[in-house]
């Protein structure tokens, strides 16, 4: 089967923060399963896209949710006129044909679902398809990458110890102000000073993490605000739309954020 549709054609924009690119390449060379940790909107998905492009591998992404079963990953029998037909799930597809399989927000999936990746993530590198009685040996290009957001919910939702310990991990945070401004300026196509202001606003909102906000404004949010600015919206209004209103419903915190933005502008 051809995985061409999973290949990225154009280079995705990614601005390296540290030596994560080199680390990822080394880990991939060893086919070491990797875990990307970091808050939402800090560039985890963009990073994996960029790496897939750089390594010229197809990328199969699965957004995990709590109702996901193992069959959603592995595959299932379906019925047709002739009888039953086996359909490979995304994970099996990647294993069989060689691709990077990216399980986004893995903690959302139930723990009994995530254990199906265990035999793939140690030196066996196999995927047993119980229902079919088949043992799929991983293609040499196959690699597994998961993302993981250690937010406040991690008390209730956490990876099993036995899952965690199979992975190497790269920690992502929001980049330094200068780099983040560069990213925002590039992605939103705005001038550097405006991007710097947006980043300053974002950093102030991150100060409220745990003091009214679950998370501060992500780089993604700042880019959104920047795009509105690029369309001629005033910066305070753009921040309202892209940042203040989406991030919280709490009137006090909105008021505080609005005032903080006013102090910066």
């Amino acid at each position, binding site marked *: 089967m051809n995985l061409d549709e999973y290949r990225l054609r154009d280079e995705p924009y990614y601005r390296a923060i540290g030596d994560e690119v080199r680390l990822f390449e080394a880990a991939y060379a060893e086919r070491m399963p990797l875990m990307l940790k970091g808050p939402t909107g800090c560039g985890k998905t963009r990073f994996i896209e960029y790496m897939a492009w750089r390594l010229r591998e197809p990328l199969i992404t699965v957004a995990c949710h709590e*109702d996901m*079963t193992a*069959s959603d990953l592995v595959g*299932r*029998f*379906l*019925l047709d006129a002739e*009888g*039953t037909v086996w359909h490979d799930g995304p994970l099996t597809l990647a294993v069989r044909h060689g691709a990077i399989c990216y399980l986004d927000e893995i903690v959302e999936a139930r723990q009994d679902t995530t254990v199906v990746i265990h035999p793939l993530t140690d030196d066996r590198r196999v995927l047993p398809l119980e229902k079919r009685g088949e043992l799929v040996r991983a293609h040499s290009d196959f690699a597994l990458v998961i993302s993981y957001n250690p937010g*406040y*919910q991690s*008390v*209730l939702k956490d990876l099993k110890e036995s899952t965690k310990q199979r992975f190497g991990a790269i920690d992502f945070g929001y980049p330094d102000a200068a780099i983040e401004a560069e990213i925002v300026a590039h992605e939103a196509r705005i001038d550097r000073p405006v991007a710097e202001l947006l980043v300053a606003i974002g950093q*102030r*909102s991150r*100060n*409220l993490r*745990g*003091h*009214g906000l*679950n998370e501060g404004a992500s780089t993604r949010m700042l880019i959104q605000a920047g795009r509105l600015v690029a369309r001629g919206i005033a910066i305070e209004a753009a921040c309202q739309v892209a940042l203040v209103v989406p991030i919280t419903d709490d*009137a*006090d*915190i909105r*008021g*505080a*954020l609005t*005032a*903080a*933005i*006013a*102090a*910066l*502008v």
Partner: protein
Amino acid sequence: MAQRPPEHRHVPIDWLPDQPELAGTLQLVWRQAQANVPAEFLGDWLRACRDLADRMGSHAALGFVRNSPSVAAAAGVESAFALAAAVPEIAASAGGGAGLALLVAAPAAARRLGSAQGFGEWLRVLRLVGDRAPESLALLLERTERLLATIDLRALEGWALRGIRAAENEPERRLRYFALVDPLALRALEQGTEGVEFADVERELKAYVTALWRRMPPLRVLPGGGLEAPRRTSFEGGIIRVPTAFRGWAGRSGRELFRAALAHVLAHLQFTPARFPLGGLKPVQVALVSLIEDARVEQLAIAQYPGLRRLWLPFHVADAAGAVTAPALMARLARALIDPGYADPHGWVGKGREMFFADPSAWQEPGLSRTIGGLLGNDLGQMRAQFNARTYVVEPLYRDDHQGLWDLPASPAPAEVEALQESVRLEGRADSPDGGGRAAGDETANRASLVPAGREVGIPVARYPEWDFLIGRDRNEWATLIEYPPAEGQGETIDAVLERYPELVWRIKALIRAAKVSRPLRLRRQSEGDRLDLEAAIAAAIDRRAGLAPSAKVYARLERRFRDLSVLVLIDASQSTNDVVGAAGKSVLELERDAATLLGHAMDGMGDPFALHAFCSETRENVHYYRLKDFDEDWNAVVKRRLAGLAGRFSTRMGAALRHAGRELAQRLSYRKLLLFISDGEPSDIDIADRRYLVEDARRAVLSLRQQGIDIFCVGLDAAGDGYLARIFGRGNVVQIDAVERLPERLPLLYFRLAG
């Protein structure tokens, strides 16, 4: 003038032949009366004087003659006549003294109110008070000017009614209220003022400060000061004090004012590194150095946050017109130093501005304020502009009172002392009014619980067996459990705990929310349900085609599971919990208390019924047991006081306490019963030498409770406790917390995990 009746040109002395004194006074004020009472009403006015003299005697008439022209001047002639009508009425209901007091107070009220309508309203309020609280009316009238300077008429009415209601049938209390001695009166007065109260905006402001400065110094509200001079924010020793409200600043502008005030204080905290030594500075120099320092830190803050200039500017209202007094000049200088668009012709202001802006790079140095302030102070002295340090109030409104800028000899601010005395008087107990002097609060808490310790009286409620592992059997009725009423401490220390862990409180809140709206559970592979489970249906179809017996469980349904959980938290309060641990210098007991507070906060939020008990022991004859909170009690101030009053004493005989707690829990009808045990050490007691004995007994107690369906979970604070705690509770039911300082954050989260 031409149509004025001739008989009014001169004082008709002979018109009052029987009242020579009145006639004399009339002559004195005649010119004023003529100026203020329109000619056509002069006759009526004279008749009113005459009338008052007849009905109430010459004193009242004299008062009217002297005061009514000013009333007419300020609030129109109708007001003067309304006054004449009101005086006898007031005198009838509240006594002649009140009538005279009304005449004395009327000119000031008329000046304040400025219209006949307002004056009439004022008289209406007075009649109302006269009817319901006649004894207090004179007092109220004496304070007219101060009251009307503080609040408007509508608020005055509300305030008066509140006093009357609060002290119905208690004339003495009413007297205190209207004399403004009763703290309630002062508080009510503050609430009656139009203005944003700090409490309403506190959360938003805290978030604002945290966002911009990444920290939030503790905030305290200044105790209510009633009618004192306008108040300013203040900061000292890292604590910011803010007024409850800025009078007359309502709505949005009130919010902005608080925000401006806090931003100003934070600018000081950021850019004023050390206090200025007082040295030999004169008061005027102190005020000016402070003023320059204010401007300096504001400029630095504006460089960082340009929007702050827009926040502060509207409060600078001084302008170049008006009298050249020292305070006015200083307000103008303050404005000149922040407002680039402000022009001021005065040489002194110009000089200050020039010096300040000569070299912006010098702003980094706090010494600049001292230099410029000192020079300007000398100049101001030479200009002979009067400066009165006693009456000087920092302008504009949002700036702090400069207490935090100077290295002053340590003495509590007068307002604080007053409040201190007040709280002593009112509550019969002493505490720093800020409630934040944690050390002080704890001392009192410990004192409060230590003093009655000698004479505390407990009730023996049960005798429990103890397991003797040597003989392999229970010793019946061996340990006596005595319940003591818990000592009460300072509830504020408990509330302060929540403040100290803002992040955690927030997390708890998020967890409660997540747990409460717990999404419905999808049950798959059910034999009945409202929809097909596609997976199961397909599997069944495949099985059938394969010739196997298909499962009938092909349905799925959604179900909400309800929580039904009772939790009893048992706290070890033995002597060893007084040990101080960690860098924070807190005792184990304090940490236990913090943890219990946060846990209580979490459980209260979840709505799970929970109890909070504590124990310690001195021999088997006296196992102390304290019920800090029972299942059917609310998580209220009393419970918090008891928690604050908890003291660490004696030893740790776990078995009896566990059995007692278990018995309590066993009576609950909940589906799940959880006993959460917090202990800092090995079981021990002074009458037991064998270390294993109490461990085995506790283990026995745990086993028997488990048989009754009670989940027991232990949080161990003894890093070396692995052996015995696992022996007592079983390995899976113990969590060791090696860094005890982290207990407060770990415990509530543990609860969510256990209860989830």
